[in-house]
């Protein structure tokens, strides 16, 4: 029991600590791909600390919601990230929320973020929020359809069970899974505001989505939001990893030695994902906002197709 609690605690801390690192790593790789030196990998940590220490400037018209939202966003994202198996399935609290609930927790965070964007009453916040909810409105059903595909295959919506099933030999290669994977990656890109849907590095007014919402934030509030964004990226990568690359997860009851191995493999997965993400982002151009629905619509169709093809590939 204590050990279980401990492993769960490690997981929570691990995601919190690794999240800025992943962001920094992706930035670094991207910079190198562009033949720049780029900021140090640990730069996000420094940014966060500096933001924490600064005084927060709050716009005159901002309400209490503006100040409360960052903490709630952070909390919801952190809880969600802590519930996705990273290095070991079957954590103590893994039954607290299944995949659907994790998706919904992210939805709660986004809900607050979109509201926070509208609080001050500038036109930029509104732009960001309205585009964010548009993207989410298309991304979420796609994500849930992917969940359906996985759940119908594995007979469960519990991530641990799904991961266990995916690691077992009875899965095999399936068209559905391939489609689900592609769709999941597309959705994850959109959800995390990466190129080509959004550019996390831009402040060009009319193209930004996420940055427009958090434009008024500063200081510790901004730190919370940045950390939440990093956590979300980490969560997406972990999710893809635990579902589609489930090997190397420390099986429950496998003994203490399995955990370091699991952690090491997890780090390797993160690194690989970071490189791939950076490659992808460098190779592709950002699209116009009103092309995003097409992009996400494709993801949605892929996910639906994946679900329906399940019945063809194996009569469930």
């Amino acid at each position, binding site marked *: 029991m204590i050990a279980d609690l401990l492993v769960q605690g490690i997981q929570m801390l691990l995601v919190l600590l690794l999240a800025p690192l992943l962001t920094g790593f992706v930035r670094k790789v991207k910079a190198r791909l562009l033949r720049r030196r780029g900021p140090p990998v640990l730069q996000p940590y420094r940014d966060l600390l500096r933001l*924490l*220490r600064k*005084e*927060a*400037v*709050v*716009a*005159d*018209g901002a*309400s209490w*919601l503006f100040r409360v939202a960052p*903490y709630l966003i*952070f*909390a919801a994202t*952190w*809880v969600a990230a802590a519930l996705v198996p990273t290095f070991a399935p079957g954590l103590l609290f893994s*039954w*607290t*929320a*299944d995949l659907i*609930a994790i998706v*919904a*927790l992210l*939805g*709660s965070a986004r*809900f607050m973020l979109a*509201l926070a*964007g509208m*609080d*001050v*009453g*500038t*036109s*930029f916040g*509104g732009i960001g929020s*309205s*585009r964010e*909810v548009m993207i*989410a*409105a*298309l991304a*979420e*059903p796609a994500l*849930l*359809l992917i969940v*359906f595909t996985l*759940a*119908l295959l594995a007979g*469960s*919506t*519990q991530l641990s*069970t799904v991961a266990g099933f995916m690691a077992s030999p009875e899965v095999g290669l399936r068209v559905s899974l391939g489609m689900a994977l592609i769709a999941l990656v597309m959705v994850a890109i959109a959800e995390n505001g990466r190129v080509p849907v959004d550019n996390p590095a831009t*402040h060009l007014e009319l193209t930004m989505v996420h940055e427009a919402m958090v434009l*008024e934030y500063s200081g*510790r509030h901004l730190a919370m939001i940045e950390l939440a964004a990093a956590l979300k990226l980490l969560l997406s990568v972990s999710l893809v990893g635990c579902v589609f690359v489930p090997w190397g997860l420390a099986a429950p009851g496998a003994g203490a030695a399995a955990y370091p191995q699991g952690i090491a493999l997890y780090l390797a997965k993160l690194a690989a994902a970071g490189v791939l993400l950076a490659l992808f982002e460098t190779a592709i151009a950002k699209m116009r906002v009103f092309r995003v*629905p097409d992009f996400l619509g494709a993801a*949605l169709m892929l996910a*639906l197709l994946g679900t*329906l093809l399940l*019945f063809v590939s194996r009569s469930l």
Partner: protein
Amino acid sequence: MPAASFLLACDAVLLATAMAAIAFGRVEGAHRAVYGTALVVSTAIAAVALGYLLTAGGVPSDTWLPLGLPWLGADFRVDPLAAFFLVVVGAGGAAAGLYGLGYGSHESAPHRVLPFFPAFLAGMNLVVLAADAFTFLLCWEFMSLASWALVMAHHREEGNARAGYVYLVMAGFGTMALLLAFGLLAGAGGDYGFDAIRAAQRPAFVPTLVLVLMLLGAGSKAGLVPLHVWLPLAHPAAPSHVSALMSGVMTKVAIYGFVRVVFDLLGTPAWWSGIVVLVLGAVTAVLGILHALMERDLKRLLAYSTIENVGVVFICLGLALAFQASGMGAAAALALTAALFHVLNHSLFKSLLFFGAGAVLSATGHRDMERLGGLIHRMPQTSVAFLVGCVAIAALPPFNGFVSEWLAFQAILQSPQVPQWGLRIIVPAVGGLLALAAALAAACFVRAFGITFLGRPRSDAAATAHEVDRWSLAAMLALAVGCLLAGILPGLVIDALAPVTLALLGERMPAQAGLDWLSIVPIAAGRSSYNPLLVFVFIVASAALAVAVAHRLGSRALRRGPAWGCGFPDPGPVAQYSAGSFAQPLRRVFGTLLFRARERVEMPAPGSVAPARFTLEMHDLVWDRLYMPIASGIGFAADRLNRLQFLTIRRYLSLVFVSLVALLLVLALWP
């Protein structure tokens, strides 16, 4: 005293209050008496019904009155299904009564509201209690009539008369469909008692036809697309606490009617009946919420969102039907539980939201969101309650809306075990639509809350608004707490619903009471589980931790300054994102096809000082394609037939003559 008699007595009190209010409606303070009575009586009803649901073990309680059809009498019965809906109606009525205690003092025409409010409540209760077809329909129509009178309370306001008219005509249509359905069920002998109907043997086509008629009848009252057109007109037209009742409770009574007939009286359905209900529900959910997204009138937005939620409930009901037809009792129980849970949830948060809209309306005089904004500063408590409602209705954890949606998704994931291929393919697609509806709902309520309460005021009225009275606040906060409690302790609700599913399907969901940490497990622990209590605790704890860390390790300093806005000079509140512009991205995605939305921008020539103009054109295709042709068809027929009013006597005589000769010819040529 048996539960049924007590509940009937409660309704008698309500009706007596209504009669008294006819006489004393204009007296100063009459609203306190009426709403106070409604509050007390409704609370009693909810309490008794809940007590029955939890303790009676499914044994029905009957009361017979010598009213209605003389050879049948009026049979009233409390069984688990009725008891559950009585809890919903009672809770909604109590909340509306509490809210009305304060809100009612703003009423300009109390004599047009006070008599009908308790009558409306009584009507809804009696529908649920009725145990024969005649009494059921009598109360059903009485409920429609009372709510119609409430819609017409502010009859001089523009559009309300039309709203009332469309409402009552659609209600009449629905009743006719129900009449036909019960006619089929009762048979030529006129066995109108529910017991007799349940026991009757019928030909195979009857259940099909009855199902279709119930979809028309109950569906039109509940707001199923394409029978929903009256709902966004009528619900907002009534005073806000009545809107809350109509949206939050009356649509539930319609769902009760559907469940009662289809699940209880009809017996096992055909397997494809589930598909019909599923698809209708899915279309309703998505279209309803898209309409809501495009709407700028706050109360109409809420009404359209009601349509969406009704669609969600019908999706669950369709699943339950499909599972039941395939003999999958446990899955059917899960789906039905999801439906009923959503019924409860929606009644809580929709009442809450309408109360909030009413508070905004009474504080600012506006329902149009383009004239609101920044109310979070002027109405802090209302805004908290409204926010809770928004999060709950957007199906986000840890509030209650998510739980029922989660259960619905779990039920959808049972579909591979259904033997029919059609269902297997359709159910996941419907699941995708349900997810789409949920995501759109989140967008819709970000917009609703963000435009109304956040930002800066868009009108003087919004800038000088005041917080509403304590009664109204108490009602809203009570409902907000209800949303949270149902959200974090869903196991209790699921267990309370077990007698209902047991009575209707003979199955129930696994008992949730004994599980660790109060989590819920719909089928088996390995399949899925959700523990909202822990999620809630975790979120609160991590948020608190984050605050503590940020304040301890970082800076506590806070400075107010002008908004940054990328350095643009502040052009004033008009430059904020408006309700229309917020919806624009989604309108571009969905509206072009579904609403024929056309945007036109007229740019003046370079150098011209004329303002640029933006016009938006949208159509409700259901209205244009379905109702307008019917209306013009009736108009055409009426015009044609109307010529018969202007004939000469000679021509009228010719009609008599021709009739006579025709009949004689028939007689002469008859074999």
